[in-house]
């Protein structure tokens, strides 16, 4: 070990280890008991831990329950004392992934707002005291009289779980385990029930599911449509629609250009599946179990992939709106770290189903036999290091271990940032989040789009490893081998930056094939293809007489400077000045 050379210090003196907690091991809240947990340098005993976490949870969720009445109230969603009765305009849906956050969320919601009597996971006596300190009007006390749900939300609450095992070879289907956990919160004695809605990731491509959630009819001409992702404008092409939802899902994910894109696409599909399920139940609130830690991971990796606009423009209030409905997407654990969720679950004896890490590569076809499982398992082994999300998670976990306060700073900083522009109407058609305008123009301005761009040639940058010589223009712009498109319309203008990047980003290793790839589209994207003009929806053109579709008339192309001057020449002032 080398010395710093300072003669005033002892030789070989080691720097004292930084303490993980401030002051003493006594609880900072009650100042009586010995501490059991350190939360960002503060020590809490087990008795004080439960009310601390449930208070933080209610402080985030509480102000969002009643409909926003005025801008002033909306601006103060995180502070202030709630007055009056809590009454949501719709029902409640809880998104459950099986992870620690979801497990803790379900338990907190049940204990704080509904009657809960499951003896299998009874709360410790210290937690029960928390409810009795509230007044008689508190929903949790009221619910004990009614025997129904707390009276805060309309109808029956529900838990929705999206199973992803179908894309993970050898993964265990956890649907029944999750069902058992949800069942444990039901109480036949008081007739309290929570509905369980199991979904599968491939439902995003299943018209049966789409119909079951009351999705709008899909035009006959739109049912066979996909997008060609080898062209960055994402032209809409026809494709073979005889594949099953599972086959479509595998095609969709396996054709994405990068491992990061696969992870991002899975998260996006799950989010939209939950939203439409909530909409079908006339839910006013969709609760997700993202903790402070996972929120920070999602923020950093999202921003790295270009999703910053959606994150920031939504801010703390994330709302999905149609003309008839409005669903608030709330993350009540956003002030609670993953560590606190883990301790809550452990000390409350909650059963944790767990969740698989999303894959970063997916086989093009569903697994049918053992051999494919072995091949795919070998792929999964190397997946940890290959996606932005995996790298970000490793980074944030390391940060939380060594500098826990910095993780909370990430989430708080996002809340302070805003956007200059407003989202386009309707948002992104794939992820259903706010989308910034002029995504493609922005990309054209900031990037080198072709190996023949002047900037690239001048830079003398080495070519990627899969090219031994600069590709000719013919190779780069080879005609598509797919069937002639039935329309010249494109999906790209209706996507946010992040979704467009998901479909079109180029791996530095190059793609396995240069053939055109036509991706199937999720049902909600196909449903957005309308027949009427005058809306912001994509219009599809067809020669099919029975289709009765109208053709789009506008087509964009870049013009040269001389063409521009020709168009506006008569309006230009003479440079020579007045005569």
């Amino acid at each position, binding site marked *: 070990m080398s010395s710093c050379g300072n003669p005033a210090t002892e030789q070989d003196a080691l720097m004292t280890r930084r303490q993980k907690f401030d002051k003493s091991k006594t609880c900072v809240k009650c100042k009586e008991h010995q501490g059991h947990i350190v939360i960002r340098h503060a020590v809490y005993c087990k008795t004080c831990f439960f009310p601390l976490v449930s208070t933080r949870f209610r402080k985030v969720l509480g102000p969002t329950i009643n409909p926003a009445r005025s801008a002033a109230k909306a601006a103060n969603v995180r502070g202030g004392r709630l007055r009056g009765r809590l009454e949501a305009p719709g029902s409640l849906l809880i998104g459950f992934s099986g*992870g620690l956050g979801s497990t803790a969320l379900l338990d907190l919601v049940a204990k704080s707002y509904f009657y809960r009597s499951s003896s299998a996971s009874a709360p410790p006596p210290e937690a029960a005291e928390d409810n009795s300190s509230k007044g008689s009007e508190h929903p949790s006390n009221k619910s004990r009289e009614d025997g129904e749900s707390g009276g805060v939300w309309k109808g029956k609450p529900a838990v929705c779980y999206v199973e992803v095992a179908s894309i993970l070879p050898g993964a265990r289907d956890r649907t029944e385990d999750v069902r058992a956990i949800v069942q444990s919160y039901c109480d036949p004695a008081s007739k309290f029930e929570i509905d369980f809605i199991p979904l599968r990731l491939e439902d995003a491509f299943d018209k049966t599911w789409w119909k079951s959630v009351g999705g709008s009819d899909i035009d006959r001409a739109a049912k066979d449509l996909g997008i060609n992702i080898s062209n960055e404008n994402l032209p809409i092409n026809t494709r073979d629609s005889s594949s099953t939802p599972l086959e479509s899902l595998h095609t969709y994910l396996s054709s994405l250009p990068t491992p990061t894109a696969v992870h991002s696409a899975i998260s996006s599909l799950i989010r939209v599946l939950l939203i439409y399920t909530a909409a079908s139940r006339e839910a006013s609130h969709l609760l997700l179990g993202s903790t402070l830690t996972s929120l920070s991971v999602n923020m950093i990796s999202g921003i790295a992939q270009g999703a910053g606009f959606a994150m920031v423009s939504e801010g703390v209030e994330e709302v999905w709106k149609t003309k008839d409905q409005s669903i608030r997407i709330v993350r009540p654990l956003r002030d609670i770290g993953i560590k606190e969720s883990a301790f809550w679950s452990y000390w409350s004896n909650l059963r944790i189903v767990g969740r698989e890490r999303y894959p970063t590569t997916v086989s093009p076809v569903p697994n049918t036999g053992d051999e494919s499982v072995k091949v795919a398992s070998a792929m999964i082994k190397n997946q940890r290091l290959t996606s932005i999300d995996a790298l970000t998670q490793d980074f944030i976990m390391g940060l939380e271990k060594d500098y826990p306060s910095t993780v909370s700073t990430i989430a708080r900083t996002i809340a302070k940032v805003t956007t200059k522009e407003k989202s386009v109407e309707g948002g992104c058609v794939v992820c259903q989040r706010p989308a910034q305008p002029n995504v493609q123009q922005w990309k054209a301005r900031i990037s080198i789009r072709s190996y023949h761009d002047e900037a690239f040639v001048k830079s003398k940058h080495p070519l990627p490893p899969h090219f031994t010589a600069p590709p000719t223009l013919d190779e780069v712009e080879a005609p598509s081998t797919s069937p002639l498109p039935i329309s010249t319309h494109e999906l790209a203008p209706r996507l946010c930056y992040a979704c467009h990047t998901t479909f079109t980003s180029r791996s530095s290793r190059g793609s396995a094939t240069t053939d055109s790839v036509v991706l199937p589209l999720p049902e909600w994207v196909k449903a957005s293809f309308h027949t009427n003009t005058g809306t912001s929806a994509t219009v599809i053109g067809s020669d099919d007489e029975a289709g009765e579709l109208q053709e789009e008339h506008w087509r964009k192309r870049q013009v040269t400077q001389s063409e521009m001057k020709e168009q506006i020449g008569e309006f230009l002032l003479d440079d020579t000045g007045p005569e």
Partner: protein
Amino acid sequence: MASNPSAVTLKIEFGGGLELLFSNQRSHKVSLPATVPNDNTTAIPVPENEPTKPADVTYLIHYLRDHLLKERAELFVENGTVRPGILVLINDTDWELEGEGDYVVKDCDEIVFISTLHGG
């Protein structure tokens, strides 16, 4: 005066998915020598004439990796300690309050390892 026991028996528990790495078994009982090599090598019996220390949680982690872990050691151990994202409880208390890896284990201690790596 009673003599020090030559071994300490510990109850180990895994949660949050970690049990999958340990034969899918949540609870284990392990017996560690009371005195172990300074460099945390886990060969049994402990070699003589080696500098030693009382068995601590760092040694326990190495022992679990070498003797109980069935696969993917990198998911449990990193840089001589548990991987970031794995919580450790010593007798129902956060190990950060007990000195983390330097805590000297005693007979009948209960050590719990919970993975938070797939949260949310």
